[in-house]
């Protein structure tokens, strides 16, 4: 009886330790120069632990809110569109997002590319750079630290980013956008877009992302979005070659104009 009791106690102890190990929030790691180390593979998700494959409460055969599956944006404020930008957003909506540049495999700027929880994001940090690798669209950003934006910026879809540290937060200042990218909620980028991104690894598992979006051509005032990125140990970035088998966007246009006109939509024959 004593041996059985001891065995049971050891099982309880082991289970308790296992629970403690999985439930303990560990501090954010530091680099040799004392900065928080952002290095790691993350997923936009509110859940700690392994890969978050589906929305909480999702079940087969039932459509779950896609927002829960793909992003953890907690922005509660409506986008402060100018009247012209609002009309553009309404047009996007009316056309069922058919003109989304990503449909043609064009890169999406952050916060969009950061928050697509289907795909991991990898941070690589050195004393002079933070490099962010995105599985989605198989692209990257190299963010130099403590430098100025170059004077010869060519407009680009993801913009030109320079970084600096504010305490434990890595701040990226992003300008130089090409007009016409889709950012968030029907907001289209202009050449006046300015992002201030703030990355804070609050503990070992959790990297908070906050972005303030300013664009006097599209917005009446700045607004902020927030997303949580969770460390996904064991996850790795896998190739996403968007153009490999991409649909010709013209078929979507045909469907929009005449939903029955595009029987050729059947692929692979």
């Amino acid at each position: 009886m004593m041996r059985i009791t001891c065995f049971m106690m050891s099982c309880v102890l082991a289970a308790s330790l296992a629970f403690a190990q999985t439930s303990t929030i560990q501090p954010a790691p530091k680099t040799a120069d004392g900065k928080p180390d952002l290095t790691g593979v993350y997923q936009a998700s509110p859940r700690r632990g392994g890969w978050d494959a589906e929305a909480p409460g999702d079940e087969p055969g039932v459509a779950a809110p896609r927002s829960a599956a793909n992003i953890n944006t907690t922005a509660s404020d409506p986008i402060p569109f100018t009247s012209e930008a609002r009309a553009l957003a309404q047009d996007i909506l009316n056309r069922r997002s058919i003109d989304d540049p990503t449909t043609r495999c064009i890169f999406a700027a952050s916060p969009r590319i950061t928050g697509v929880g289907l795909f991991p994001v990898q941070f690589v940090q050195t004393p002079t750079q933070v490099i962010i690798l995105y599985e989605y669209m198989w692209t990257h950003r190299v963010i130099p630290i403590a430098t100025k934006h170059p004077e010869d910026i060519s407009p680009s879809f993801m913009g030109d980013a320079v970084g600096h540290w504010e305490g434990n937060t890595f701040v990226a200042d992003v300008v130089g956008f090409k007009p016409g990218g889709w950012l968030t909620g029907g907001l289209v980028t202009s050449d006046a877009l300015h992002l201030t991104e703030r990355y804070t690894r609050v503990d070992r598992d959790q990297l908070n992302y906050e972005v303030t979006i300013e664009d006097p051509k599209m917005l009446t005032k700045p607004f902020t979005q927030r997303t949580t990125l969770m460390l996904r140990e064991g996850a790795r970035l896998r190739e996403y070659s968007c153009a490999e088998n991409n649909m010709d966007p013209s078929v979507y246009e045909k469907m929009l104009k005449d939903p029955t006109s595009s029987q050729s939509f059947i692929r692979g024959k």
Partner: protein
Amino acid sequence: MRNPASRAAVAIALTGWLSAATLSAHHSFGVAFDATKTVMLTGVITKIAWTNPHTHVWVDVKDANGHVVNWTLEGYPPNVLERTGWKKDVTIKVGDTLTFFGWLARDGSPFAHLREATLADGKKLFFGPPAGTGEGPATVR
């Protein structure tokens, strides 16, 4: 007894466009598929394209009159499938029986967004995301 069509409609209404458009990966759901028209059929796999930005599976489905229709089914890219339990050339193969639940293409062709796949052994796996992006029309908030 669940009712996928009505549950889908509720989910879409709750999600709203503002957040959904934020989330669209590659192309919106609504650009090609109709979230009000679900489909659930069983057939035999004739071809698999394990490709980006979408994986496609083709399935021969026999109707009540014995006519065979080859359906095209679209889902996640391979990297997403592999992280959620799928293995290329193992989980499904040409010749396997597959039951699929999803949403029909807007053009009425035998083309569908495949949400849930039921394999020959009864195992159920998600093959694509839920409906809910680019549904329009609605009003910008």
